[in-house]
């Protein structure tokens, strides 16, 4: 007689975790089949935040799509703008001036730090460490102040434009950014003190949610999730865009592919992002911020008011919009959460025929079922935290 026959017969319990739950990071619903505390089956159910952003893009001009991309991964708005703007520029075949590229990199890396800080705080909070949240948010708040200087808001930037930027950096921004960049490496020690060597933290994260290198690639993981499993792949280094080749940075890699490794990878990524910001600030070139192409960029106001050509140019770009040539394009960037790709089909009209977003959160979430099986309920919470999902990015 084997042990299964000897065991008393038990029933499993169905638990509906979410969509309203403190640690599903938004409106994720997980159907759980529990045997006591052990997860027999975990089925993530998504779609509660589906807004049809991809479809909405089809009825808008390219520039009108830009604010929609803000709302994909709302913790890293600039990264979304960045991907979309780069894709359209690739379609148009224009390259923005060096200064604009550098400013874009600076803002994208600051956004990465801010997104990772948010992850750190909430991940810690999910595992019961309440305090790192406030330490992380102290720095995030400073970043938010910086962002507010640039685009006047906190979460939804819409600062990048197809062919350049909405405006040059405001006065005093560079000094404040230097302040932040200089003090951040000191601040990051606080988080290490609270968590990195904490026995409980290690016990909660080590060997939880392990995916080997091959499995991570099979599941399509990218970004810090894949690097935690040891996949040496970073779009910033391997297919550089927007002058990333000018900067010197390391790609941290994990070895075990567990939650603790992914934690270390993200912590080191913040340091590296900070290094990139430092280099951008050191090397920041002067010059134009927009491409010199009247079919893409609005003419300056004095031309609009004083010349008929300028007025017509302005009118056409506003009324009709940018018209890229017929074709399709895929452009991916290294967003804080992984590969963020935009696949755009243009039929030559001012509206995109199709916009497909390859959001990192959706892909990162997909192996939940495999990772959660046989683990405890508490591990599922750690898993959702380490995946660093934003449901707006999952559902789109």
């Amino acid at each position, binding site marked *: 007689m084997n042990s299964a026959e000897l065991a008393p017969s038990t029933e499993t319990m169905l638990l509906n975790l979410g969509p309203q739950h*403190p640690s599903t990071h938004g409106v994720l619903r997980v159907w759980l089949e529990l045997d006591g*505390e052990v997860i027999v089956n975990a089925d993530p159910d998504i779609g509660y935040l589906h807004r049809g952003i991809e479809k909405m893009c089809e009825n808008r001009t390219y520039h009108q799509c830009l604010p929609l991309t803000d709302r994909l991964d709302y913790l890293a708005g600039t990264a979304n703008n960045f991907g979309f703007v780069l894709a359209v520029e690739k379609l148009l075949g224009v390259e923005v001036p060096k200064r604009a590229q550098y400013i874009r990199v600076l803002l994208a890396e600051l956004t990465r730090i801010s997104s990772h800080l948010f992850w750190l705080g909430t991940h810690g909070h999910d595992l*019961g460490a*309440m*305090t790192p949240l406030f330490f992380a948010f102290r720095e995030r708040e400073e970043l938010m102040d910086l962002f507010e200087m640039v685009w006047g808001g906190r979460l939804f930037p819409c600062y990048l434009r197809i062919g350049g930027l909405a405006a040059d950096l405001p006065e005093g921004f560079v000094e404040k950014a230097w302040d932040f960049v200089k003090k951040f490496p000191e601040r990051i020690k606080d988080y290490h003190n609270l968590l990195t060597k904490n026995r409980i933290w290690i016990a909660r994260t080590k060997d939880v949610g392990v995916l080997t290198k091959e499995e991570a690639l099979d599941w399509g993981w990218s970004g810090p999730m894949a690097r935690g499993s040891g996949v040496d792949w970073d779009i910033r280094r391997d297919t550089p865009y927007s002058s990333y080749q000018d900067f010197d940075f390391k790609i941290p890699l994990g070895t075990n592919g567990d939650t603790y490794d992914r934690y270390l990878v993200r912590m080191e990524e913040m340091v590296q992002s900070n290094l990139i910001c430092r280099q951008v600030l050191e090397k920041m070139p002067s010059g134009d911020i927009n491409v010199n192409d009247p079919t893409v960029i609005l003419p300056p106001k004095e031309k609009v008011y004083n010349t008929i050509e300028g007025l017509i140019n302005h009118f056409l770009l506003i009324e009709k919009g940018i018209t890229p040539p017929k074709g399709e394009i895929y452009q991916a960037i290294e967003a804080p959460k992984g590969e963020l790709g935009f696949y755009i089909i243009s039929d030559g009209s001012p509206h995109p025929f199709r916009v497909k977003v390859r959001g990192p959160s959706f892909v990162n979430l997909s192996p939940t079922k495999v990772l959660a099986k046989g683990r*405890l309920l508490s591990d599922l*919470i750690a898993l959702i935290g380490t995946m660093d999902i934003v449901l707006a990015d999952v559902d789109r």
Partner: protein
Amino acid sequence: MQFLLAEGARLGLSLIGVISLVAVNALFLIWMERKVSAHIQLRPGPMEVGFHGALQTIADALKLIGKELITPEDVDKLIYLLAPIVMFLPVLVSFLVIPFSPTLLIRDLNVGVLLIFAFSTLTVLAILMAGWASNNKYALLGAIRSVAQNVAYEIPLLLTAMSIIIMAGSFQPSVIVAQQGLVWNIFVQPLAFILFIICGTAETNRAPFDIPEAESELVAGFHTEYSGMRFAIFFLAEYTNMFIVSAVATIFFLGGWQGPFLPPVVWFLLKVYALIFLMMWFRWTFPRLRFDQLITFAWKILIPLSLVNLIVTAFVLKLVR
């Protein structure tokens, strides 16, 4: 007759005293917790109501009194309603034997410590009742966790307590305090103190052992379905339990009311609140353990250690005496 009247008056007064102590203590501890957590987390905490938010918890309590008492559908009504009471009453009983000073104690029972442990065990029953009767899966999971946890941690708690009790040779709190006249037990039994504080933290369901009500996993755990004052009573009991555990630790290890210059009551309360501060410090610094790790920790580390401690204590005592 006169004796009965005097005793009755004494008991009545004691009851009033205990209830007001419990209420004031809980109000103060909630405020203290909010302030301690705030200062650990780089924020000021409540500042608006009263001096540095001192009256904030009173405002909160008034709000809770005004809240509707919701009884969800399909709950096991009798058990659901009884659970908060079962949670709260044993807590009151424990105050009967706590010696605040040589003179300020209600009953100096010779089984005092035993009484405290016996009644504090009842909170498990209350948590189980609340979780089971709530007809909520989160509450049920919280209750299951709580029972497993409390059973596991009761053993090392009692074993460490035993090593102190055999030193004093009595279950009587006042005797245990008097025995530490020259050297406090914390210096004689440092390991026992650490074990006791760990188990005490677990017994009161405080972080890092707060898995029965792990907010980010089980919403609010066993009291998810309780609202208004019913919820407040659970809260009250939790904070009062903290006081009792710290009081017992003070009696066992910190020499109870003893101390120079200040009156005994002040010394006693100072030590109790210092220990409570320590427990709050744990909560706002450590992540939460996982359920299986928690149980493993109790069975594989705490119980063997406390057993060894007990055996060594017994052995040394035999040699000395």
